[in-house]
């Protein structure tokens, strides 16, 4: 059987998603029997022109990780879309914005001011900030990608066939998804390649969770020694399990760390609103003062509840019903 061609690309991401593919270890050898990676900037030294030279649809699949913040990322996503039969949004940033999209809680101006002007380690007396078109010191035109106001998820700029969230998706998730893709054993287009239930349902600690949780206060992990068996919420430690998709095998919980929500929301729900709902349903406080004290234990609700899903949130993403 001739090998199929595939590409792996990164946009606004940390490199962890590429790393998780490398982490497949020897399993990648079996995949290499079937797939020729013709474009993978993290691991090889290809050029954009290599992709441009391909026929439309010549790539069987492109795995694109990272969110979209710049015009260059959008262009590359569109190019790969044209050249690929299937596009997979790989990892939480591509699926729903991920960590980079937390920046949607700040204005573009505030980000530039901080990064280029106010940061104490900057020396920038002329107040130079990047602009798309400028001249170099010796007078040559220089082009930089446009830095958008909003961090988009991949599906906001191109059609995405499948989504594999995770920060990053772990080896088993990647192997299962790649096998399904190579065997053509796939759910309807647009699906997320993971179960559509909440993480709590497969968490071993769920049994220790009482029917009615009565939390007095939220504790920060650095201040307590977490019990290794009890449900984190029952210990007053924030755990995103109730508002997060299942499918990772709960590695964090097994490492005695609460879930931070990396697989994003279940269904098409708004992860933060779901978490507010879940947390409001528990707890004992009924008087305004007590509620205020309880909530002081969650100093950054938006950043905590949408840590990985800002670009698919209802308030922190662009209006998907209105064209940008």
């Amino acid at each position: 059987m001739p090998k199929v061609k595939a590409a792996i690309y990164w946009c606004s991401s940390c490199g962890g998603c590429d790393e998780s593919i490398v982490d497949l270890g020897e399993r990648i050898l079996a995949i290499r029997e079937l797939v020729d990676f013709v474009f993978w900037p993290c691991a090889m030294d290809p050029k954009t022109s290599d992709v441009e030279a391909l026929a439309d649809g010549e790539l069987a699949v492109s795995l694109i990780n990272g969110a979209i913040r710049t015009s260059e990322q959008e262009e590359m996503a569109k190019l790969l879309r044209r050249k690929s039969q299937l596009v997979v949004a790989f990892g939480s940033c591509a699926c729903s914005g991920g960590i980079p999209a937390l920046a949607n809680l700040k204005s573009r101006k505030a980000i530039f001011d901080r990064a280029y002007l106010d940061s104490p380690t900057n020396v920038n007396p002329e107040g130079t900030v990047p602009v798309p078109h400028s001249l170099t010191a010796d007078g040559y035109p220089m082009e930089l990608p446009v830095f958008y106001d909003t961090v988009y998820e991949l599906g906001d700029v191109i059609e995405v066939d499948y989504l594999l969230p995770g920060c990053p998706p772990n080896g088993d998730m990647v192997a299962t998804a790649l096998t399904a893709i190579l065997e053509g054993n796939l759910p309807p287009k647009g699906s997320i390649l993971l179960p559509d239930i909440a993480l709590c349902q497969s968490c071993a600690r769920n049994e220790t969770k009482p029917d009615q949780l009565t939390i007095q206060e939220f504790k920060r992990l650095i201040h307590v020694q977490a019990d290794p068996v009890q449900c984190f919420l029952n210990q007053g430690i924030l755990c995103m399990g109730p508002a997060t998709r299942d499918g990772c095998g709960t590695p964090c919980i097994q490492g005695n760390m609460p879930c931070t929500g990396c697989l994003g929301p279940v269904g098409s729900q708004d992860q933060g609103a779901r978490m507010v709902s879940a947390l409001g349903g528990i707890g004992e406080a009924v008087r305004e003062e007590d509620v205020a004290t309880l909530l002081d234990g969650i100093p950054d609700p938006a950043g905590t509840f949408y840590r990985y899903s800002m670009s698919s949130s209802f308030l922190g993403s662009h209006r998907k019903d209105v064209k940008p």
Partner: protein
Amino acid sequence: MARFEPNIVAFVCNWCSYGGADSAGGLKLSYPANVRLVRVMCSGRVDPEHVVKAFREGADGVMVMGCHPGDCHYRNGNHKALRRFRLFERMITQFGIDKRRFELEWVAAGEGKRFQDVTTSMTERVRELGPLEITGNVVEETTHA
């Protein structure tokens, strides 16, 4: 220039606040036509997701109204609503949304006058704040903590 007419969505619980709206009607106390009621069984049934959806789809302000604390027909639905929406208010502020665009109120079935008052003051307040624009990013950092 024509006066800005805000869209206000009000989730009202069946047992108290909807009754409050009804008794406002009975007493011929008018309330602003800007306020569109959504009757739900209990304020504890209102998911914050319903509220973000309302904002997303064009509401300039959203109210959730339920029975006074202690009077919820499902015992503690309004207590849940209190914890949920106090947290919710803190969260929307981070999105640059003025929290005065959201209001949690307790209105009993007999409180027609109170229903009129809270819906009127909400409408006036949101009228002053102007239309809500959701851009997908925080354009201006708000200071309404």
